[in-house]
């Protein structure tokens, strides 16, 4: 590549191009035709259709391979019972799912039946993506579903989604190591101070952090906040706490981190909700973790000596902070060509006994009360652990908050980012809390 040639081509290229006239009319017409062909080609492929007289439903969800296997088995059973309906499924991890679904919905191409998180309901319902389920009442029965949980799928007095199961948070700990350390075991009604003392005692006895630093988790913060009679959001979707509250929380967790009672910043920054990336799951770098109950089944493979589920700490006056959260919703796309078949499919997933047996507690404990009672004795292994845990706290918890406002899913990430600044000691808890509250207010305003 000699220098002179390079320079010449740079020099001459723009001027030659400038002289080129715009295409003639015939060429333009040809281009337009090609464009039209391309566009029709696109719109044809996008529609959900009927193949060979069968209604084809698209059903998407997020989850792990275990949930996928059980879901597929349930779908197969549904197809057997309804030979005229074909269900096409696809799944991925939560973050990827959330982003893909939002893009699909924006393009008017939402799947017929979609699994939704509590945080997504408000956005999808008010954005006109979801079908008002009252329109399909004949095909989809909600009679047996826990009334309080059913109400969590209501936006603007309309039922847009039905929860499939409920979950609650838990302190999950390495049973053997905690006992061996000789520290008093977690008990019902323990407070955040009791918890902090236990973390310190465990660290002192074992030389390892007692548990995961809960400062990163908006979920854990919500439990702490509710224990003080406050909430993440007000009824009209504004921020339910102040920078002072958040400063106190982060000061509390930051002090424990400095003492070595909870996981160091290098560990905490890796957390993403999966049990594999928790200090407890990464070869026992800590003795406990706080997580959701159903996903904690993943610890079985990671902690060979076994884990126990304990309730989350309460406020100092005994106010419980944790609640039964509807763990996964099912909704129908407003644009679906097969709303009735979709409703029938959801009805099957929620109310069919055989389906419930297949699905077990893979999405949490079923919300259908009659099914919950009947399958409880048949649950095995970790499904049973989760069911027993939920039974142990059932009746002691306060009712769940209403669906979080749309900006919440972005704020969840912001929360973790801001706490990173605290745990790596780049900001004080006060500075980070002010940052968070400013950003949250902007997010909730838009």
């Amino acid at each position, binding site marked *: *590549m000699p220098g002179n040639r390079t320079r010449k081509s740079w020099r001459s290229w723009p001027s030659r191009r400038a002289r080129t*006239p715009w295409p*003639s009319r015939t060429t333009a017409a040809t281009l337009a035709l090609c*464009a039209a062909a391309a566009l029709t080609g696109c719109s044809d492929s996008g529609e959900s259709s009927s193949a060979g007289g069968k209604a084809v439903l698209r059903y998407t969800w997020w989850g792990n391979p275990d949930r996928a296997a059980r879901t597929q088995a349930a779908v197969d059973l549904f197809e057997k019972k309804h030979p005229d309906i074909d269900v096409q499924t696809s799944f991925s991890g939560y973050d990827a799912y959330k982003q893909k679904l*939002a*893009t699909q919905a924006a393009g008017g191409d939402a799947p017929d039946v979609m699994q939704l998180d509590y945080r997504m309901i408000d*956005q999808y319902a008010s954005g006109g993506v979801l079908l008002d389920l009252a329109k399909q009442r004949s095909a989809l029965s909600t009679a047996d579903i826990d009334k309080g949980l059913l109400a969590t799928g209501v936006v603007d007095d309309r039922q847009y989604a039905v929860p499939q199961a409920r979950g609650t948070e838990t302190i999950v700990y390495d049973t053997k190591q905690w006992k061996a350390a000789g520290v008093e075991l977690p008990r019902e009604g323990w407070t955040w101070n009791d918890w902090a003392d236990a973390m310190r005692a465990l660290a002192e006895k074992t030389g390892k952090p007692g548990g995961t630093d809960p400062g990163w988790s908006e979920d854990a913060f919500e439990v702490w906040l509710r224990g003080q009679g406050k909430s993440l959001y007000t009824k009209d979707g504004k921020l339910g706490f102040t920078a002072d509250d958040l400063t106190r929380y982060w000061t509390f967790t930051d002090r424990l981190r400095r003492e070595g009672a909870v996981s160091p910043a290098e560990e905490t920054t890796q957390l993403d909700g999966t049990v594999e990336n928790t200090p407890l799951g990464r070869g026992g770098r800590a003795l406990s973790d706080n997580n959701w109950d159903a996903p904690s089944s993943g610890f079985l493979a990671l902690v060979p000596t076994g884990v126990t589920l304990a309730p989350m700490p309460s406020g100092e006056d005994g106010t419980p902070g944790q609640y039964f959260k509807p763990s996964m919703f099912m909704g129908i796309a407003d644009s679906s060509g097969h709303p009735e078949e979709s409703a029938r499919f959801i009805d099957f997933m929620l109310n069919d006994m055989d389906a419930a047996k297949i699905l077990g507690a893979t999405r949490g404990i079923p919300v259908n009360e009659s099914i919950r009672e009947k399958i409880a004795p048949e649950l095995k292994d970790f499904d049973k652990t989760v069911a027993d845990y939920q039974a142990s706290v059932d009746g002691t918890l306060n009712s769940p908050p209403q669906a979080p406002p749309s*900006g919440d899913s972005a704020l969840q*990430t912001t929360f973790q980012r801001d706490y990173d600044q605290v745990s*790596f000691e780049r900001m004080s808890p006060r500075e980070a809390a002010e940052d968070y509250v400013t950003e949250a207010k902007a997010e909730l305003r838009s």
Partner: protein
Amino acid sequence: MTTTEIPAPARTAKTTPAKRPKRQREGAAWVFLSPWVLGAAVLTLLPMAVSLYLSFTDYDLFNPPQWVGLRNYTQMFTEDPRYWRSVVATLTYVVIAVPLQLGLALVVALALKSMRRGRAFYRSAFYAPSLLGASMSIALVWRAVFNDGGTVDNLLGTGGWVNKPGWALFAVALLTVWQFGAPMVIFLAGLQQIPSELYEAAAVDGASRWRQFLSITVPMLSPVIFFNLVLQTIQAFQVFTPAFAVSAGKGGPADSTLFYTLYLYDRGFVASHMGYASAMAWTLLLVIGAVTAVLFRTSRSWVFYASEGDR
């Protein structure tokens, strides 16, 4: 070309004979170009125009875009500390990764040039990372290697680089530097174009190896260095995959690898602020344009073209 010229005489009656055939030739060219013109128009220009429009709106994917004027831009520059953190991270990365990568590429190219046997083999071997490096899987391997309990931690006992702010950026930069193959091949081609008489004459005059490098290789190679510099700088500004994978999609720890494109993606697809993300994208485009223009301007003082020497 010939086929389109055949019907020309029949139509010449309508217009001036001299002009028509040329127009038709160009028409044919446009027809043949149409797949690419169409692709560029529909897949590049149209989305760019839409994103320019969206950058002045508040658009959350679910509700129709609402015109907000310059608010996205003012918010970006005045109210978003994380935006500036991402700018600093990106600039740091560009300043570290590009010179290191080009330096390494040049050193290896020089070594390969003086090699008598096995040059083709080593050239391919060093080029291989460039082919692999852009892939997600390599970035994931990188994360594992530099994580706590990974290879680097075990060998050096430094702990996990990817979990320490201040170190994580180096892990990502190293991944880029490792892919020095593409600029290296270009350097090698450039080196082989330098006339050997120049070196011979210099050797006769008693110039040392180092003197030859400074007075012959560098000036003669400067157009190629410039070309690589511009290309790699533009690419470095847009780095996404390695940072996304190495930081597990978060740009962490403590936003230290939250590169511009990563934050743009976060705003657009995680927080559903497509308007804001579009405004960020256009700002990035303008900044890259400006940086490239500055590079071109400075090139006048240090890039030597053989043709100028003749004049």
